[in-house]
């Protein structure tokens, strides 16, 4: 046996991402961490998976597990890839940690026929409450750092994200909001405001318009 069998239950956002991916497709996971999602996609969807990860611990763990991963960062290294080289480019919980999220997003839909982006929603009611009532920078389960040592330098709300996609000419194929219990709700139409308030995180499937 090559890899450790993933212990279930798998992260709910991984499941959502996996649902968006066609079996046997070519996937690039940007900010792949220890490779858990790539491993999951390999097992569930038999993808041809690659990864980019900033931390050398993460990279070494991935390569040691037989995954094709390079040490690199989303802001710089995505520029190297040719257009439409992958069926899906995944950016999971990493957008808020990039220096230039707009350029990263443009690269994602350039390199991939589709991009899948998940991020913590700063419009989540608990985040808003935190700021209003404590008067301090919000800290939640998915945003657990102090303001001064957080790698998350570019937070946005679901609404902000949708606006940016519009500005960049990126088409939103589908979007799902996840509440703190892991329940999902499609983002769109009249439920939009609700999703922005109730969604702790969001997952979007995008493509270039």
């Amino acid at each position, binding site marked *: *046996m*090559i890899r450790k069998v993933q212990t279930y239950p798998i992260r709910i956002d991984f499941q959502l991402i996996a649902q968006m991916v066609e079996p046997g497709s070519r996937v690039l996971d940007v900010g792949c961490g220890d490779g858990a999602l790539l491993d999951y996609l390999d097992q569930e969807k038999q993808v*041809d998976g*690659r990864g980019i990860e900033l931390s*050398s611990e993460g*990279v*070494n763990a*991935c*390569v*040691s*597990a*037989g*995954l*094709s*991963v*390079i*040490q*690199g960062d989303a802001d710089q*290294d995505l520029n*190297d*890839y*040719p257009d439409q*080289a*992958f069926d899906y480019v995944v950016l999971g919980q990493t957008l808020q940690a990039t220096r230039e999220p707009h350029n990263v997003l443009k690269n994602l839909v350039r390199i991939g026929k589709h991009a899948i982006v998940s991020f913590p929603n700063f419009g989540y009611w608990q985040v808003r409450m935190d700021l209003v009532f404590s008067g301090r920078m919000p800290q939640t389960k998915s945003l657990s750092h102090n303001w001064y040592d957080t790698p998350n330098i570019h937070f946005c709300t679901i609404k902000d994200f949708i606006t940016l996609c519009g500005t960049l000419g990126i088409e939103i194929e589908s979007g799902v909001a996840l509440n703190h219990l892991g329940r999902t709700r499609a983002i769109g139409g009249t439920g939009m405001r609700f999703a922005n308030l109730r969604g702790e995180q969001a997952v979007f499937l995008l493509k270039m318009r």
Partner: protein
Amino acid sequence: MIFQRDDKTSEPFNSVKAGKYLTLGVDVPLVLDCGIPLDNFTVAYESYGTLNANKTNVILVCHALSLDQFVSGVNPISGKNGWWDLVVGPGKLIDTENFFVICPNILGGCMGTTGPKEINPETGERWGLQFPGVTISDMVRAQALLLDELGIDKVFCAIGGSMGGMQVLEWAAAFPERVFAAVPIATASHHSAQNIAFHEVGRQAIMADQDWRGGDYLNQGCYPQRGLAIARMIAHITYLSEPALQNKFGRRLQDRDEITFGFDADFQVESYLRHQGSTFVDRFDANSYLYITRAMDYFDLAEHHGNGILAEAFREAETRFCVISFTSDWLYQTAESRAIVKALNAVAANVSFAEIESDKGHDAFLLEEPEFWKVLSGFLEGAADKYGLISK
């Protein structure tokens, strides 16, 4: 004289025939990059493990500048452990109970493969400088002929560090369909000005030795051991890191309590380098050193295969790459590996890249580095899985 040897034989190093040999270029000569055809040349190699029925379990190990084909077990010439015995062998990371590991001595080398110290059949004398200039590409094409002869169409993996890594890159660029996985370690796609500069100093040291005799020393019964030893001393410094040297020697004195105000080896580091130099001349041919360093200097994968664009050299590659560098390697720095990765990404090749934290310098790939081994082992297992070599 520091490097004077006791015996004065014209054969400066042990030339006991060991390992395996094949004569190649019998029907069709190998036309070298310099334009000269080389026929009926010998490739000395060693192999470990058993070739499976489908010949799919081959790992080609490419050796570095001063190494040889004796990767694993005991080197029959030196009596010491093979240079990668830590990694290659039964039950080891590269398990010779599963894989057929083959390592050819490079063209131009001095461990049995045709090179400047062998006899030129046309003259009956040692080739010396009459030997044609060779390139990394020539070495790889000679290896390809060896594999042809052994009936091996495709290797599961080509792996090597330093100049071995250059050969691995050349393999992937020249014969992408023959390499399933490639592991270039602590290497570069071309030699930098600094790399060439260090080599040039080494070559000048050899050629400045009176006993070099314009490269004809073997025919004249002498040997440029001082020059070669100095070349080795210089090179050896580049294989280590500053902290590695500092930790190992610091400013400690050698077998004395006080400095002598002379030029004997007062410091331990001097004594160590002198030892490295003097033992090297026992096992290496000075002309081979010139030829091989030249081949490395000429190496430029982008120029040779991509019209100056490295990515183009990998355009056809279906190969799975695992590029590995070491933090303290200042001879082939991580930036060089990163440039290779960048080029591979530009053609959306399947590539893994890990930079290993180590203070051991360039030589780290030869030494005990658990993190490096973990990465290498994981990559090989994953690749073996994809190649169908591991039954789930």
